[in-house]
C-alpha cells in the first residue's frame, strides 16, 4: 500500500494533474480484468495489477496510462494472439510476466506491440513462450529497459524476434536480456536509437540485426553464441563501443558482419572465438580502434569495395588468420596495432617494431583465390610456404602492412 501511495504521488507530481486515480485489478477486486480496468480508466490513471493469473489477450492500451504489476502477475495469452497493444502516447508498462503469445505468419503477433505512440516506457517485463517479443512500430521517444525475453525458437522460419524496432526513432533499449529467439534485437528504418547494456545470447539467427538505421549507438552489449552473430547493414554514422562478440562459431557465423556501413566508429569491442571476427563488405570511412580480436578463425575478413577505413591500436591475438583481403588495399590504413604473430624487433625501445608487419598470410591469400585450398589447413607444406613468404614476401600485396606495429599488447580501459 505504501509503494502504491508513493507511485500515485510520483505520478501526480510528474504529470501535474491532480485528478489521476489508481485502479486496482485482482481476482477479488471490483475490477477483475485488465481490459475492464482500461475501459473505466481515464487519461493518466494508474492501473495496478495484483499478483495472479490473467488469461487475456488483445489488450488495447488506447489511453495514456501507467500499467504496473505487483510481484509479476502472469498475463497468459493462451496462444490466442497478441497480448498488449499500445496505441496511445505516454504509456508505461511495468513489472508483468507475459506468456503464451500466439503464432501468426501474417500478423506477427507479439507480447507487446507499440503502434504510433510517443514517450512510451516498457520496463521490467518477463516474456516467455512468445512469437515476437516487444514490437515497436512507427513510434518514437520511448524506452525499453530491464526486460527479460526467453524464447524457445528452434528454426528461423517459424520464430519471431525479441525486440523489434520498425520505422521508429529515438528509442532507448537498455539492460535487456534476450535469449532463444530468432533475432535478439532487430531494427529496420529506426534512426537515432541507442542500444546499450543488453545481453543477447543463443539466438537462432542474429544477436543484433539492423538495416537502414542511421545515427545509432550500440554500447556495452554482449552478443554470445548466436547462430550467425551480429549483422548490420546499409546504415550510416553508427557508433559501436565496448561490445562483446563471443562464441559465434559455425561455417556461416560472424562476430560482426558489416555491409554498406559508412562513417562509423567501432571502438573498444572484444571479438573472441568467432569463426570470423568482422566481415566487412562495402564499408567506407569506418574507424576501428582499441578492439581486441582473440582466438578467432579470421579476425578481419575484408571483401572489397572498402575505402578510407582506419584500423589502429587494435590487439590481434592468436587468430588462425589475422586478416583476409580479397581486393586491393585501396586507401585503408593499418597502423599501431599489436599482432601476436609479429616477429620483428625494436632496437630503439620505443615500443614500436622497426620492421613492418604483414598481416596477410600467403595461405590466407591463396585460400581467398581458391576456396578449396582451405582443405590444406594445418598441413606442413602450408606452414613452410607461410614462413618463406614471411621472410621474403613475393605474392602478398606489399603495401598491405602495418608500418608501426606495437611491441606490447595495447591496454584499454573499456569503462
Amino acid at each position: 500500500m505504501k509503494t502504491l501511495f508513493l507511485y500515485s504521488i510520483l505520478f501526480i507530481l510528474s504529470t501535474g494533474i491532480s485528478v489521476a486515480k489508481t485502479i486496482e485489478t485482482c481476482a477479488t477486486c471490483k475490477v477483475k480484468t485488465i481490459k475492464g480496468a482500461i475501459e473505466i480508466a481515464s487519461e493518466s490513471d494508474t492501473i495496478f495489477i495484483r499478483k495472479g493469473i490473467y488469461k487475456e489477450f488483445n489488450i488495447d492500451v488506447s489511453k495514456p496510462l501507467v500499467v504496473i504489476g505487483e510481484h509479476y502477475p502472469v498475463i497468459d495469452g493462451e496462444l490466442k494472439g497478441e497480448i498488449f497493444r499500445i496505441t496511445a502516447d505516454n504509456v508505461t508498462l511495468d513489472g508483468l510476466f507475459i506468456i503464451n503469445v500466439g503464432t501468426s505468419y501474417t500478423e506477427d503477433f507479439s507480447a507487446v506491440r507499440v503502434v504510433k505512440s510517443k514517450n512510451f516506457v516498457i520496463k521490467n517485463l518477463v516474456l516467455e513462450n512468445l512469437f515476437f517479443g516487444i514490437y515497436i512500430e512507427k513510434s518514437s521517444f520511448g524506452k525499453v529497459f530491464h526486460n527479460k525475453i526467453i524464447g524457445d525458437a528452434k528454426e528461423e522460419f517459424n520464430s519471431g524476434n525479441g525486440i523489434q524496432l520498425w520505422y521508429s526513432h529515438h528509442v532507448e533499449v537498455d539492460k535487456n536480456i534476450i535469449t532463444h529467439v530468432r533475432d535478439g534485437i532487430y531494427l529496420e528504418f529506426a534512426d537515432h536509437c541507442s542500444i546499450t547494456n543488453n545481453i543477447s545470447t543463443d539466438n537462432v539467427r542474429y544477436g543484433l540485426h539492423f538495416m537502414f538505421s542511421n545515427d545509432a549507438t550500440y554500447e556495452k552489449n554482449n552478443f554470445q553464441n548466436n547462430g550467425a552473430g551480429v549483422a548490420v547493414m546499409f546504415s550510416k554514422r553508427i557508433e559501436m563501443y565496448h561490445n562483446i562478440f563471443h562464441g559465434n562459431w559455425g561455417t556461416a557465423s560472424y562476430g560482426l558482419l558489416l555491409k554498406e556501413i559508412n562513417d562509423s566508429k567501432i571502438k573498444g569491442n572484444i571479438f573472441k572465438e568467432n569463426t570470423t571476427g568482422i566481415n566487412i563488405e562495402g564499408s567506407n570511412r569506418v574507424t576501428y580502434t582499441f578492439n581486441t580480436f582473440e582466438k578467432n578463425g579470421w579476425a578481419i575478413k575484408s571483401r572489397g569495395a572498402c575505402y578510407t577505413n582506419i584500423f589502429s591500436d587494435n590487439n590481434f591475438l592468436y587468430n588462425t588468420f589475422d586478416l583476409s583481403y580479397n581486393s586491393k588495399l585501396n586507401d585503408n590504413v593499418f597502423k599501431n596495432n599489436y599482432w601476436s604473430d609479429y616477429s620483428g624487433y625494436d632496437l630503439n625501445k620505443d615500443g614500436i617494431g622497426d620492421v613492418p608487419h604483414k598481416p596477410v598470410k600467403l595461405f590466407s591469400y591463396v585460400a581467398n583465390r581458391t576456396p578449396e585450398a582451405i582443405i590444406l589447413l594445418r598441413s606442413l607444406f602450408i606452414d613452410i610456404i607461410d614462413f618463406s613468404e614471411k621472410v621474403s614476401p613475393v605474392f602478398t600485396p606489399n603495401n598491405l602492412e602495418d608500418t608501426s606495429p606495437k611491441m606490447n599488447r595495447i591496454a584499454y580501459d573499456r569503462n
Partner: protein
Amino acid sequence: MFKILKYSFFDLIRSRWSYVYFAFFLLLGYVLLFLNNDVSKAVITLMNVIIILVPLMGTMFGVMYFYNSKEFTELLLAQPLNRTSIFIGQYLGVAISLSLSLIIGLGIPFLAYGIFKSEAILDFLLLLVTGGFLTFIFTAISFYIGLSNENRIKGFGYAILFWLFMAVIYDGLFLISLILFEEYPLDTFSLIASMVNPIDLSRILILLKLDISALLGYTGAVFQKFFGTHWGLIVSLGLLTLWVIIPVFLIRKKALKKDF
C-alpha cells in the same frame, strides 16, 4: 612367423630407440597437457605432431632396422623357414613396437589428465588409430624400399624422399593444381586428392572432428558430408588399410623373388 615377430618385437622393445621414441611421446603429452590443461586443445597440437612425425619415424625406423638386421635375416634365410614369415614377421615386429610406443606414450599422460571424463575421448582415439595406421603404412613402405635397394645410402635416400613427398611435396602439387584449375569445380577433385595420400587423409579426418573445421567453410561442408557419415569413415579406414596391405603384398612378392 609368430616366432620371428616375437623375436623382432622383443629385440626392438629392448633397444634404446624404442625407449627414446616412447619417452618423446610421454614427454610431449605431459608438456602439452601441462601447458594448457585442456585435453581437446592438446589433441589439435598433437595432430600436427602425429601426421608429420609418426610417418617420419616409421620410415626411419623401418629402413634402419631392415639394414641393421640384414645379416641376421640372411642367417634366418639359411634355415628351413618360409620367406614370407621371415619378412612379414620382422615388419610386424617393428610396426607393432612403434605403435605401442606411440599409444602407451601418449596414453599415459592423457589418462592421467582424465581423457575418459573428457568429451575429446573419441578425437583422441581417432588420433591414436590414425597414428597406428600411419606407422604401419610407412614402416611397410620403408621395408619395401630396403628390400629393393642393396645400397644403404640409396635406400635411406629413397625412404626419406618418399616421406618428404607424402608430407610436403604432395600438398604443394595439390595446391598448384587447385590454383591452375580454379575455374573448374574442384570439390570432388580435392576430396579424391586428399583421400589418396594417407597423411592428408589422416589430417582431414582429425580436422573435421575438431572445432576448427568451421574454418573450412563450404569446402569443409562437402568434406563433412562425406566423412561425417559411416560410409565415409568406412571408406577412409578402408583406404588406410589398403595403404598397409599393398606394401605388405609388395614386400612378400619381392621377398619371394629376391636372390640373396
